[in-house]
């Protein structure tokens, strides 16, 4: 708890509401320390005490259709760039939901680096230029179907997720590049490049 007398009213009230177990003793402590916010603290303590504990109320065992409808509404309200938006095809890309660790492991398994793999996650490579053999290996490693993966990679290119929310303007991802361009522009070793080229149809 902040002890400075300069603490603002909203800071003090927030600190009180974030207390693990606000009770009469907690309130007494705050009242003594912040007498200038006496009435606000008392009112807040009553509201916190009064609020019913909602976590203990079990949901119905059979989910209602209302949730489905609410989800559709929710999803339709999201920005097209949102990873969960209905308009976002990246959501279907199995690479976009991997943890950082799994993403790293996958790159190692495929003997490529993360930059190269991220080009697939961001759908920035022309699918027709990707060797089938490589796609098959990728689909197998991701435990998804070949067709499903191909479909996901055909989505419009996206910007990297880290940049997606910082840009003040409309995100722009540019055009897709060929598999060959990706090979040479991703910092892959000669050996890695050769191995990938050998998969070409």
């Amino acid at each position: 708890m902040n002890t400075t007398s300069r603490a603002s009213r909203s800071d003090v009230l927030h600190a009180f509401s974030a207390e693990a177990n606000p009770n009469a003793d907690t309130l007494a402590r705050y009242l003594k320390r912040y007498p200038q916010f006496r009435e606000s603290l008392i009112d807040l303590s009553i509201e916190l005490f009064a609020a019913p504990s909602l976590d203990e109320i079990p949901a119905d065992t059979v989910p209602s259709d209302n949730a489905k409808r609410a989800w559709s509404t929710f999803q339709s309200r999201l920005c097209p760039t949102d990873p969960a938006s209905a308009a976002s095809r990246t959501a279907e890309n199995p690479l976009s939901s991997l943890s950082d660790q799994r993403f790293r492991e996958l790159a190692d398994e495929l003997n490529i680096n993360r930059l190269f793999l991220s080009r697939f996650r961001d759908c920035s490579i022309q699918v027709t230029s990707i060797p089938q053999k490589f796609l098959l290996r990728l689909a197998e490693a991701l435990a998804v179907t070949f067709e499903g993966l191909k479909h996901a990679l055909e989505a419009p290119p996206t910007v990297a997720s880290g940049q997606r929310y910082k840009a003040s303007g409309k995100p722009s991802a540019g055009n897709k590049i060929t598999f060959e361009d990706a090979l040479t522009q991703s910092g892959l070793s000669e050996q890695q490049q050769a191995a990938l080229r050998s998969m070409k149809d």
Partner: protein
Amino acid sequence: MVIPLKKTTQKGEPYLRRAEIEHVLNELAGLPANQLVDRLKCSQKIIPFEVFIYYLRHPELALGAEHLNPIFTVFYDRLEAALRKTVSDSQFDNAAAIREEIAERVVEMIAEDRNSQDEKMYYWETNFNHALANFRKDVLRSIGPARESDPLINAEPLTYEDEHGHEIKPEVDIAAADFINPNPSKLDDSAFRSRLMDTINMLPTNERRAVGLLLQGMQIESQDPKVMTISKALDCTERTVRNRLGRAYEKLRIALQVEDI
């Protein structure tokens, strides 16, 4: 890493969520999306509402629709169940419509917060129960009284006595100890609690504060000058506190139409 709240104190430190919430968020932070969904869906170990708001509100977490959808569904089903308790059919004529409106608006707010860089719902990640209670209060206020026959609306004040205890009717000048005898099982019942609290909220400020402090377990007075008491907190005499409690009690009893509160 858990995304801190963007709102900061005057000193520039981020506002904190309740420790319990931070703890759960830290526990879940490293999980792959599939396992995260399983944990949030688990009915054995209930995850607090605040955690759901966190996952629904932050697009930076990069959860795709396939993972966010089941999280949303669990959240929404639980929200509906909570609203059925706190906006009950027995309390409101048009309870279903009110519940629907509250749920819709909560979902709308989450989407808005998710789309913008705003931090409107930061408090819902800190204290969901309180945030929803306040939101419910706002919606109810905009709708109007629960029903025309709402007992408190038609209740005649029993006395118009002054703060110093003159002209108090003997039957309302009762000992506070007799009045607040909180029956724990009743107070644990969300539906009863919601009704009780709605009624308390309709009391005049002075009475509401006296009742609210008493319910929290604060003593009316104490011989020990170091102990915080209701009369100290409200800066009035012990007698005034008792009078306020007495008046409040009568109103609560009428409004709740029960013998033992």
